[in-house]
């Protein structure tokens, strides 16, 4: 008996189309849904030492990054990749770069971790976001 499976052009073509279709369906079901219009959102920045800064903005933006850009006192820095957008490394000069500081800026929506990064997180009216300084040690200590 031949133990090897031969990939024929027809079978391969069907397999490729099936994979592509599956990816498109999953993406269309899970992609971030944006809302057009004016939103009022609150943003808190929670630093390592427990201090907090509070900001509010009224924006037409559809994603969190654009909303933060409308707040002059909130300075967000990071590295941008095509795939994931901005990866935050510092907020208002406080660095939380995982490679250097073993810490990161977690993004919370109404206290719960967001599903997307700052560039892809869609915003809605009356939401409250928190940028939480999170060290790798604290994260590891969680049950």
């Amino acid at each position: 008996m031949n133990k090897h499976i031969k990939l024929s052009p027809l079978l391969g073509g069907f397999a490729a189309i099936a994979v592509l279709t599956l990816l498109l369906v999953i993406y269309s079901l899970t992609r971030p849904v944006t809302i057009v219009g004016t939103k009022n959102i609150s943003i808190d920045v929670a630093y390592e030492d427990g201090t907090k800064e509070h900001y509010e903005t009224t924006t037409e933006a559809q994603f969190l990054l654009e909303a933060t850009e409308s707040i002059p006192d909130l300075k967000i820095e990071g590295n941008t990749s095509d795939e994931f957008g901005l990866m935050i490394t510092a907020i208002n000069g406080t660095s939380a770069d995982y490679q250097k500081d073993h810490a990161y800026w977690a993004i919370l929506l109404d206290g719960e971790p967001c599903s997307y990064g700052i560039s892809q997180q869609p915003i809605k009216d009356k939401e409250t976001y928190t940028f939480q300084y999170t060290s790798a040690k604290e994260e590891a200590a969680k049950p």
Partner: protein
Amino acid sequence: MKPLPKLTTNELVRDALLAAILFVSQVSLAWISNVELVSLLLILYTLVFKKHVWLILYVFIVLEGLVYGFGLWWFSYLYVWPILPAAVFLFIRVTPPKPFVISILSGIFGMLFGLFCALSYLVLAGPGAAFIWWTAGIPFDIVHGIGNFVLSLILFSPLYRLLTALNRI
């Protein structure tokens, strides 16, 4: 115990050169997101140089880590890239293989690359984080798959002829 097969000097130098070509191809196309020649070259190396592909591949992976840093993505490379030579050994039984079949294999691998990488997030951060990470990158996986398909369709035949001729020297 069966002794380990020894590499000749010629094979060692050739494998090192092929690993360098693999690495240079990755670096030179790094500016185009998710378009790469690594998949096609790995398929070619597997078809022409058989089990030597494993040495070439792991030299390439170590080089990637040394240059870009040993992040989580690097650990996923340890098991994601070997899937491609394994698939070639398993599925490609015709010599010379049809370029369309190779392109299909390369395209499917590109489309599933993010899913394979997400397995490391599954272990470290749980199924929710792994799923979100994977789905956020699906458009890029599709670009990866289409890029792999097109590049393989164009370049497989000439490169296969070139490498088989070099292997006979």
